[in-house]
C-alpha cells in the first residue's frame, strides 16, 4: 500500500471513526452515569428498568429522541433554528482531534509500529481548543434567538455573557500552564510534566482551581447552570427544541464536560501519566495502561461535576458575573504573575 495514503488517510480515518464512536458511547453512558450518581446522592435508585440494572436506558433515550416529532415553532427563523444544534455539537466533538489520550502505542503488539492514539498533535493545540470551543456559544445564542421565545432569548443572552466572561480567567489560568510547560502542544505539555517529574497541579494549584471553576461555568453546569435555569427560564435557550435537535444540545453539554475534564487532566494532572511519576517505588503503577490513567482522571472530574450538581444551589446571574469579573479575573492575573515568578526563579 502506498505509504502516504496509509499514513495520511487510512490511519486518521480509522482514528476518527474510533474516537467518534467511543466518544458517542461515552457521552450516552455519561447521561446514565449522571442519573445514577445523582440518584444515589439523592437517596433514590435512578433508572433501573431498561435492561439489566438499567444499563440499556441510554439506548431507550436515544430511540425516544429519534422518533420524537421534530417541531419548529411558528415564529422561528427556520434555517438558524436548524443550524444552531449543529453549531454547538460540531465544535464539541472537534476539540477531541487534539486531545492526547495516551502516548504512542503498539496496542499490546497488535500493530507493526507505534501509533499515537490521538488524531493529531499540532503545535497550537491549546489555541485550537480554546478557539473551537468558543464557537459553541454561537450555537446557543443563535438557537435562543431563532426560537422566537422570550425565555430562550434570555437564556441565550445569559449564556453568551457567561461564556465570554469566564473565558477570560480561564485563558489566564491556562497561560500559567504555558509558562511552566513552554509549549502550546498538548502532547508537549504532558511530556513536560513527565520530564519535570511533577504534575502541574502542584505548582499550579490556584490556576487549576480557577480553570476548573471556569470550566464548570463554560459548560453551563451547576452551580453556573443559569442559561438553562429550568425553574426561571423553563429550559433556557433550548426551550423550543425537541427530538434530536434537543439531543444535540444535550450531547454537546456532556461532550463539553468531557472536553473540560480532558483538558484539566492534560494540563494539570499529567495526562496519561501515572500518579507521582517521580516516585520510583510507585513504579508498579506503570502496569496500568496510560490510557486507563487518562480515563480515570477524566472520570474523576466528571464525578466532581455531578457532585457539584448534587450539592450546590444556583447562582443568580449578576452574582455569577460578580464572581467571574471581580474574583476570578484578578485571581487568575495574580496567578500568572506568581507562576511566572516561580518559573523565572527555578529555571533561571
Amino acid at each position, binding site marked *: 500500500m502506498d505509504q502516504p495514503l496509509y499514513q495520511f488517510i487510512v490511519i486518521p480515518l480509522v482514528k476518527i471513526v474510533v474516537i467518534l464512536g467511543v466518544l458517542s458511547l461515552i457521552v450516552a453512558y455519561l447521561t446514565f452515569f449522571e442519573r445514577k450518581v445523582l440518584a444515589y446522592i439523592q437517596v433514590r435508585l435512578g433508572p433501573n428498568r431498561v435492561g439489566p440494572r438499567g444499563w440499556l436506558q441510554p439506548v431507550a433515550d436515544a430511540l425516544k429522541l429519534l422518533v420524537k416529532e421534530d417541531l419548529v415553532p411558528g415564529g422561528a427563523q427556520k434555517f438558524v433554528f436548524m443550524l444552531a444544534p449543529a453549531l454547538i455539537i460540531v465544535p464539541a466533538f472537534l476539540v477531541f482531534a487534539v486531545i492526547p489520550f495516551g502516548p504512542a502505542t503498539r496496542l499490546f503488539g497488535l500493530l507493526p509500529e507505534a501509533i499515537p492514539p490521538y488524531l493529531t498533535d499540532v503545535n497550537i493545540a491549546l489555541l485550537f481548543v480554546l478557539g473551537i470551543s468558543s464557537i459553541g456559544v454561537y450555537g446557543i445564542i443563535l438557537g435562543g434567538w431563532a426560537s422566537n421565545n*422570550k425565555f430562550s432569548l434570555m437564556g441565550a443572552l445569559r449564556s453568551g455573557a457567561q461564556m465570554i466572561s469566564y473565558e477570560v480567567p480561564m485563558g489566564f489560568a491556562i497561560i500559567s500552564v504555558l509558562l511552566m510547560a513552554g509549549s502550546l502542544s498538548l502532547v508537549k505539555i504532558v511530556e513536560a510534566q513527565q520530564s519535570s517529574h511533577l504534575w502541574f497541579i502542584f505548582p499550579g494549584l490556584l490556576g487549576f482551581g480557577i480553570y476548573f471553576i471556569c470550566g464548570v461555568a463554560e459548560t453551563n453546569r451547576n*452551580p453556573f447552570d443559569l442559561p438553562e435555569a429550568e425553574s426561571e427560564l423553563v429550559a433556557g435557550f433550548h426551550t423550543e427544541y425537541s427530538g434530536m435537535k434537543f439531543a444535540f444540545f444535550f450531547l454537546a453539554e456532556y461532550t463539553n464536560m468531557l472536553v473540560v475534564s480532558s483538558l484539566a487532566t492534560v494540563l494539570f494532572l499529567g495526562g496519561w501519566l501515572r500518579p507521582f511519576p517521580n516516585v520510583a517505588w510507585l513504579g508498579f503503577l506503570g502496569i496500568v495502561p496510560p490510557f486507563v490513567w487518562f480515563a480515570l482522571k477524566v472520570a474523576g472530574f466528571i464525578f466532581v461535576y455531578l457532585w457539584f450538581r448534587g450539592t450546590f444551589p444556583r447562582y443568580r446571574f449578576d452574582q455569577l458575573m460578580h464572581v467571574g469579573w471581580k474574583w476570578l479575573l484578578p485571581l487568575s492575573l495574580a496567578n500568572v504573575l506568581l507562576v511566572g515568578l516561580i518559573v523565572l526563579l527555578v529555571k533561571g
Partner: protein
Amino acid sequence: MTASSTKSSTQLPDAEALLPADAVISSARAADGHTELTVDRSRLLEVLRTLKERPELDCDLLLDICGVDYPRRDQRFEVVYHIASLARDHRFRVKVPISEDDATVPSAYGIWKAADWFEREAYDLFGITFEGHPNLKRILTHGGFHGHALRKDYDPGQRWLLTEEDSMVPAWATEELTDEDHLESQVLNLGPSHPATHGTLRVVVRLEGETISKAECEIGYLHRCFEKMSETHGWNQVIPYTDRLNYCSSMINGVGYALAVEKMLGVEAPPRAQAVRVILSELSRIMDHAVCLGANLVDLGALTNFWYFFQPREEIYGLLEACAGGRLTVSYARVGGLAHDVPADFEERVRYLLDYIPKFVNDVEKLITTNKIFRDRTEGIGVVSPEDAVAWGWTGPCLRASGVPYDVRKAHPYMGYEQYDFDVPVASTGDTYARYLVRMEEMRQSLRIIRQAIDDLPEGPVITDDHHVALPPKEKVYTEMEALIWHFKLIYEGIHVPKGDAYSFTEGANGELGYYIVSDGSGHPYRLKVRPPCFAIFQAFPHILEGHMVPDAIAILGSLNIIAGELDR
C-alpha cells in the same frame, strides 16, 4: 345566637362605647367569641377605621371579607368583615347589609391592604361593588363569566359559549415603554404553566433588563367552586373537598373544618381523637414545610434537598395511608372525631417517624443553611416588614419570618395545644432566608409536639357518642332499635347544625386557616367561606416583586408556599 363566654367578656373593651356614636346598628357577643357588629353602609369606613386606629381596639389584621346571600331578606346581601387584633387578642365580625339594587360598599383597601383580593373575590362571586377599589375585576372566575356564582339564584347547571375575547393581559402590559436609551421594556409571562409556579398561577411581569418593574398575578385556574359545592352537600360530605384545598397538608384542612362545625354544634371530639388529630396535623405540617422548602430549593437549583425532604414525606404518607386509606387526600376527620380508629401499630410507627424525620432535616440543614450561594440568593430578597405583613393580612410562617410571633396554636389554643410544650420560631429579617429558617425550625417544633402527644395518647373512642352528630357503631345498628333509628335519621337528614354563624380558625401549614360557616338549620351548610392563608399572602406578591430580578421572583414565590388548590378553591 347566644351571647355567652362570660370568662373573656370582661377583658374585652365595650366596643360600642369606643366606636363612633350611632354608627353601630347592633352589637352582640357571638358564641364563637367574636364581637359581632352590624353597621350601616354609610358609616362602615368610619367604624372600620376606628376599629383599626383606636388603641383600645387596635385591630391591625383584616382576615377575611366575604359576602353572604339571603335572597328572602329586604337587604339581600351581607358583607362580612373578619377583623382581629394581634396584640389584644380580640376579634370582630362586622356585618353590612346591602340591597340587591344598590349592591355597593366602600372599599376597605385604604385601611387594610389585605382587602384587595378579598373584595375582588366578593365582587366576582356575589357582584358586590367595592367603591374606591384600585383594581376591581373578577379574580377566581374568567373575565367573560356570566353572573355571580355564589348567589343563591345562580344555576350551576347553565352553560353558554364564551364569546368575549379576554386575553387576560393587564392593561399596563400592552403599552410599549421605552427608556431614554430607546430600549424597550419587555413583558414576560410566568405561568400558568411554568416550572417554578408549582401549580397553575400566572404572573405577568414587566422587565427592564432582568429587573421587574411591575407585576400582576392572575389566579383562578384551579377554581373548583368548593364553596358553592359545599352548599349542596351534607356537613360530613364537605370533608373530602377540604382535602383539596391545601393538598400538601390535607389533614389540617379536614380537622379545621370539623372543628368549625363542632364549634357550632357545641360538641367536642373525644380525647383520643384530639390527640390523633394533633399528631397527624403536625406530621402534615412537616410534610407541607418539606414540600415548600424542597420546591423552593429546587427552584434555586439545589435539587438534592428536594429528595432529602421527600423521603420522610413518603414515610409520613405511609402512616396516613395506614390510618385513613388515602395518602394525599385523607378525608380522615369527621364532625365529632375521626372516621375510624388508628391501626394497632400506630404508636410504633409514629415513634419510628420521630427518629426518622430529624435525620433528613439535619442533612438539609448541613447542606444548605450556611451555603454561601444559598444565602446570597435569599438574604435580603423579598423583604417584608412586619407592618406590611400584617397590613396584607399575612399569617403563619411567612408572618413569623417578618417578626410577628402570631401562631393560632399559641394565641388561641384548640384541640389541646395548650397542653403541649413548644416554641413559636420567629425571625426578624422577613426575607426569603428568614422564611426558610422559620419553616426548618417549625418542623422540629412539630416533632416536639408529636413526641408529647404520642407519649400520652389516651385510650377510648375516636368519635363522639352524640348520635345527633356521629353514626352509632355498626354492630349496634344491627342489634338495637334505637341505634338503627339514629343511623336512619343521620343518613337521611344529616347533621342538624343550629341556625347561626361562626368563624373558626386553626393554624394551617401556611397560616390561619379560617372557616366562616353560616347554617340555616338544615342538613347542609348555607354558606361556607374558607379563609385560605395563601390568598392573603399571594396578593402581596406582585408588590414584593417590584425591583427584584426574575430569579429572585422564583426564590420569593417558592418561599411563600402558594398552593393553587387553596388559593383558587
